């Protein structure tokens, strides 16, 4: 197991290298640059633009910008500036003065890291995933056990909504129902320290994953229920509870776990739309707006963070496989 984990971690290095190369090439191929601003305002004048390019090293050849980002470069005073390998994600071109790691990981004064943008997204993502699992898996299990009953149809109805209604539509509807009409929560949270304000964003963010989980669990359960070993288990006189929990559910979770891994990474890196609608201070917005702004370091930074998270999630999925099905071996 230890050897397996170590090998998978080492694999991260080439993955990061490939991902960053592709991202770097693509983003620099996109027309425009970080100093191209909203058109209704005055554009940055050529002298300033030249100064900025020199300062940020954007006037250097692309390969050198790339190595400078990954490894580092020697600055104008002959000092070595360490890059990604030292954990430096580079300067933001839009929030000038701040580095990407400061924007994403630095909490406000006197607060812990969970108050950083990454921390906020992490928390929301975990809540959303918990919602998806706590509701989705039991819903799937129940609708499989009660196939073709009202319960099954109700769950199908909710699942269909979860899959076919985009979250920007669901968000505005839930806001109108729970905030505007029932006044259960406020639309614009006074503070994210209250528990109640997390519910709507987490539910909306996790709804699609919940629906997928429920659907996949149901399908997988239906399949497992008809396996011979379930019949064997029943005929052994095991209680129904043991049969369902120990045999059916456990064996049905393999495909579910497969989608949950990457879903976690996606949920944790946040959703552009949810964050925009709720004014949520997470990192999901950072990564979408960065492309529009050509904030190169931010694009690279968010992509790499996502890449690492996905890789970690997939490793955990492989480990969970072993737990769920002893016949699968990690070698």
């Amino acid at each position, binding site marked *: 197991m230890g050897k397996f984990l170590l090998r998978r971690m080492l694999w991260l290095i080439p993955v990061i290298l490939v991902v960053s190369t592709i991202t770097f090439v693509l983003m620099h191929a996109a*027309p425009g640059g970080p100093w191209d601003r909203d058109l209704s305002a005055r554009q940055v004048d050529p002298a300033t633009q030249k100064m900025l390019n020199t300062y940020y090293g954007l006037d250097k050849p692309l390969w050198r910008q790339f190595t400078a980002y990954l490894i580092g470069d020697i600055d104008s005073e002959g000092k070595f500036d360490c890059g990604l390998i030292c954990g430096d994600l580079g300067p933001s071109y839009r929030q000038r003065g701040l580095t990407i790691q400061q924007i994403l990981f630095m909490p406000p004064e006197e607060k812990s890291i969970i108050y950083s943008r990454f921390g906020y997204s992490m928390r929301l993502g975990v809540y959303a995933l918990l919602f998806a699992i706590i509701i989705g898996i039991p819903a799937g299990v129940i609708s499989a056990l009660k196939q073709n009953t009202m319960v099954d149809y109700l769950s199908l109805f909710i699942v269909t909504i979860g899959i*076919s209604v985009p979250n920007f*539509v669901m968000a505005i509807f839930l806001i109108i129902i729970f905030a505007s009409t029932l006044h259960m929560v406020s639309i614009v949270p006074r503070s994210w320290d209250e528990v109640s304000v997390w519910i709507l964003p987490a539910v909306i963010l996790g709804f699609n994953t919940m629906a997928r989980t429920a659907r996949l669990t149901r399908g997988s359960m239906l399949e497992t229920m008809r396996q011979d070993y379930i019949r064997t288990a029943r005929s052994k006189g095991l209680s129904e509870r043991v049969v369902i929990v120990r045999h059916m559910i456990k064996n049905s979770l393999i495909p579910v*776990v*497969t989608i949950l891994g990457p879903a976690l990474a996606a949920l944790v890196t946040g959703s552009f739309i949810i964050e925009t609608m709720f004014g949520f201070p997470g990192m999901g917005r950072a990564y979408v707006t960065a*492309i529009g702004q050509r904030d190169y370091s931010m694009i690279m930074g968010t992509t790499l963070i996502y890449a690492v998270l996905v890789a970690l999630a*997939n490793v955990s999925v492989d480990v969970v496989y072993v737990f769920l099905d002893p*016949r*699968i071996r990690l070698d």
Partner: protein
Amino acid sequence: MTTQVSQPSTGKTQAHIADLTMMTVKPRSLWMDAWSRLIKNKASVVGMIIIVIFTFLALFASVIAPHNPLQINDGKGFLPPTWIEVGPNGKASDPAYFFGTDTLGRDVLSRTLYGARVSMTVGFLPTFIIIVIGTIVGLFSGYRGGRMDNILMRLTDVFYAFPDLLFFIIVMVTLRQTYIGQLLNGLFLLFSALALVGWVGFARIVRGQTLSLKEKEFIEAARCMGATDSRIMFRHILPNSLGPVIILTAMTIPGMIITEAILGYLGLGLIPSTNPKDFFITSWGASMLEGQTAINAQPWLLLAPAIAVSLVVLAFTFLGDGLRDALDPRLQGTQ
């Protein structure tokens, strides 16, 4: 609970080995049986009918649509649907526009009908590519294991590692002004981008299934009898791992339709057409976006596209359930 496939084979007086082969490999009757079981399932027949209707509507939108979807009607923006007398913006409905009008006074019903073309294509085409690639990669990876598995899985790691949306956006931003980006009103680029990142999920799920199936007794049996690897993979493992694939497919199709909408939200959607004779004019995603911003003025703007997407999802869910049951002989006759 006994399966129909195994029943006939037991009664025949054939050689023992051939008999065993018959149990699992009887292609024609397997698919024929599946089909006959599928059309006995009411829900999946309903699903198929819905899909056929939508395909028909999409193909013949130009004949069916009551209005030209690009016809701008001055002063008739945001009219409510016919069953509402006066909308929240104070405008009265017009019987000519069943679902009301959009911001420029264009007929929502007609636009939804035309939208079926883009959205059904966006839903189907990339999903099809994704399933083919994902299933093949997942099967090989899971079955062969070892080095092959490692290489393929690390490849999927790289693809997985890109945040989907980020990848779409970068690709669209970078390539939109090129020839590829303009092909088919930009749909070609959209398909390619969606397909490029989408197959990974399928590959992993099929691999997961394969990993657990290949240790099962009936695979052992097939192997003992000298079945070739490709035969085992495509005849034995594939049909048995289709369950999750079908479910995922039913969810991927609306996912694609919605992704197109979100890209529209970010200014990277379909290139709008100005000629009513064009095939691709607007999409459901675009209509939903417009509906979201106009939620206060014309809340029903969301209705037509939302119903359309939900119906497609339901249709695929029903069909998917039926297909899975039909393809899995063990499920036959239960409950």
